[in-house]
């Protein structure tokens, strides 16, 4: 080995040694000792300030990102005048909204009209309380989540279900039939999609064996699919077959829960003006707007925590990599340290990814019709989520009985059974199956005719 590269090697080791250490002796550098000496109420307040204020600060950035990305996707320029790249545009918009005339229509139910925006904003900020922004071990562990309670994911579902109230109350209090229609639609939508969402999460809860979000992240740091040979890779739930299905269902429900395109029926402009916030102007409208963006951000965080390995940077167990492949050990140790110490940054990155996905959806998909929305929720997503739930149960049972590979065997057996069932049951009961078996004949009119672009009854002139 040449001397120069040996020197680099040494520096790499020293650097990794500095970063990687996370035993309690080093906890002074993140003030954990100071934090856990405070009274519980003060601790909670500090955590809230540290992890809720960023969400408030990020919201204008999200609005800017949405407008710029959307205009790029739609081949427009977008806001680029105020500040560099139009970055100050949300602030200008905020000032504009603040200075606008605040109109209160005469016919509104005044108390409820004023309370509704606050009620809408509350769940947006309260949901994030059980999300872990960082590691649950080592010096950083006492900082986050704000409350590591036994019921983590249930809390998120419960609080997000309270989001209905803001919308319903705003629609009712406005005393305007379009507002009321918007509110009712939205609440029907939220209630419908909540079901599929909770069932898809229930499968993950079963796979984890705990409702705690920190336990879910810990579970996802285990070897991929429970195979010790694949210990380098982390078992993010989106990489498991049942987790992938659950992730897709959760993603769709998440978009519906936040009232975003293509599920933004409550505010379908061509049908019911601006829906439940038609009668709201100035800052009260801004509060609804802010609540929507904060909820989007937090739901991105929930998705990241449950399916994308939480605060981990990449699905790689760097310490295992360092042990197994000595050639990349310094690099792996530095990455391990970065993964640990910069955890909130990776989490934030995943939330930003979620937001980008939201915007991408909005640019791509047209809005659903109301009956399509309902049938998607009740007839497709909910049965799929329940089926997935059963698959998780079988997966866990087979893994316990036959070891880590058992789950895959069970999955393929289940797929084979479903295929056979499809051939025998579905094709025996559906009309297309009857055609195929010759049990019913096609009538004259239903027969397939060859399609010709040229009308055969007319002569083709040369």
């Amino acid at each position, binding site marked *: 080995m040449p001397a120069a590269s040996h020197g680099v090697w040494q520096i790499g080791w020293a650097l990794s040694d500095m970063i990687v250490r996370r035993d309690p002796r080093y906890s002074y550098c993140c003030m954990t000792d100071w934090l856990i000496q405070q009274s519980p109420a003060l601790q909670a307040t500090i955590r809230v300030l540290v992890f809720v204020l960023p969400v408030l600060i990020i919201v204008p950035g999200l609005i800017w990102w949405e407008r710029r990305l959307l205009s790029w996707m739609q081949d427009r320029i977008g806001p680029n005048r105020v500040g560099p790249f139009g970055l100050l545009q949300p602030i200008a918009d905020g000032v504009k909204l603040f200075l606008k005339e605040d109109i209160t229509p005469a016919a509104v*139910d005044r108390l409820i009209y004023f309370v509704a925006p606050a009620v809408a904003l509350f769940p947006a900020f309260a949901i994030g309380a059980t999300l872990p922004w960082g590691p649950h071990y080592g010096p950083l562990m006492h900082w986050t989540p704000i409350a590591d309670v036994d019921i983590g994911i*249930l809390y998120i579902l*419960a609080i997000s279900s309270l989001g*209905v109230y803001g919308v*319903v109350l705003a629609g*009712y209090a406005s005393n305007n039939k379009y507002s009321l229609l918007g509110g*009712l639609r939205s609440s029907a939508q939220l209630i419908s999609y909540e079901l599929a969402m909770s069932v898809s999460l229930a499968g993950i809860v079963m796979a984890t064996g705990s409702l705690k979000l920190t336990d879910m992240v810990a579970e996802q740091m285990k070897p991929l699919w429970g195979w010790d040979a694949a210990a380098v890779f982390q078992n993010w739930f989106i990489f498991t077959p049942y987790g992938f299905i659950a992730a897709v269902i959760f993603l769709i429900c998440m978009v519906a829960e936040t009232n975003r395109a293509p599920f933004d029926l409550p505010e379908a402009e061509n049908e019911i003006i601006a829906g439940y916030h038609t009668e709201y102007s100035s800052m009260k409208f801004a509060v609804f707007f802010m609540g929507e963006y904060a909820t989007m951000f937090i739901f991105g965080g929930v998705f990241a925590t449950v399916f994308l390995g939480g605060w981990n940077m990449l699905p790689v167990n760097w310490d295992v990599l360092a042990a197994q492949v000595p050639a990349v050990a310094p690099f792996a140790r530095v990455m391990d340290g970065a993964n640990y110490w910069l955890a909130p940054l990776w989490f934030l990155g995943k939330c930003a990814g979620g937001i980008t996905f939201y915007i991408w959806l909005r640019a791509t998909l047209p809005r659903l019709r109301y009956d399509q929305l309902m049938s998607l929720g009740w007839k497709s997503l909910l049965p799929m989520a329940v089926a997935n739930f059963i698959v998780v149960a079988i997966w866990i049972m087979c893994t316990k009985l036959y070891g880590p590979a058992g789950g895959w065997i069970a999955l393929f057996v289940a797929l084979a059974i479903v295929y056979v069932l499809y051939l025998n049951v579905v094709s025996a009961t559906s009309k297309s199956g009857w055609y195929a078996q010759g049990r019913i004949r096609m009538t004259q009119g239903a027969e397939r005719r060859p399609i010709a672009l040229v009308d055969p009854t007319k002569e083709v002139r040369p």
Partner: protein
Amino acid sequence: MTVFMVLSAIAILAALGVVLFSSPVRSALCLVFNFFTLAFIYFGLKTELLGITQIVVYTGAIMVLFLFVIMLLNLGGPQTWKERFEFRTVLGFGFGFALAAVIASQVFANFQYFDKPQAPDSFGSPQALGRVLFTHYVWPFEIASILLLIGIVGSIMLAKRKL
């Protein structure tokens, strides 16, 4: 203790609001708020699962339906009406107090040896509850689920014009 005091004061105010507001929507909202504060009292007693069940079931699900019904039945503005003084009102108050006294005599007797303001650790935790539900109380649990299933099927039967 102060947390409990503040929360229970809010809960009592909300409960009074349920009775005293003339608009049914506002009363229902006060009831929602009351349930919500109750959930926080449960949190304060370290029984998070109970509190969150309170929010999911009552605040989240039942009250939304309740609000729907009220909103669809009563779409006008808030209206007030005055009641004439009646003998029945006095009688009603009397019976109310009697009922409160009966309930209080049953409830307060249990508070006699009560000195711990919090549940012990892992009391009512999801794990403990799940274990009990699927071992000791498995039959009542399953029967309750069948009841719910019958409810679902029944509502579909009622709502659908043709099956």
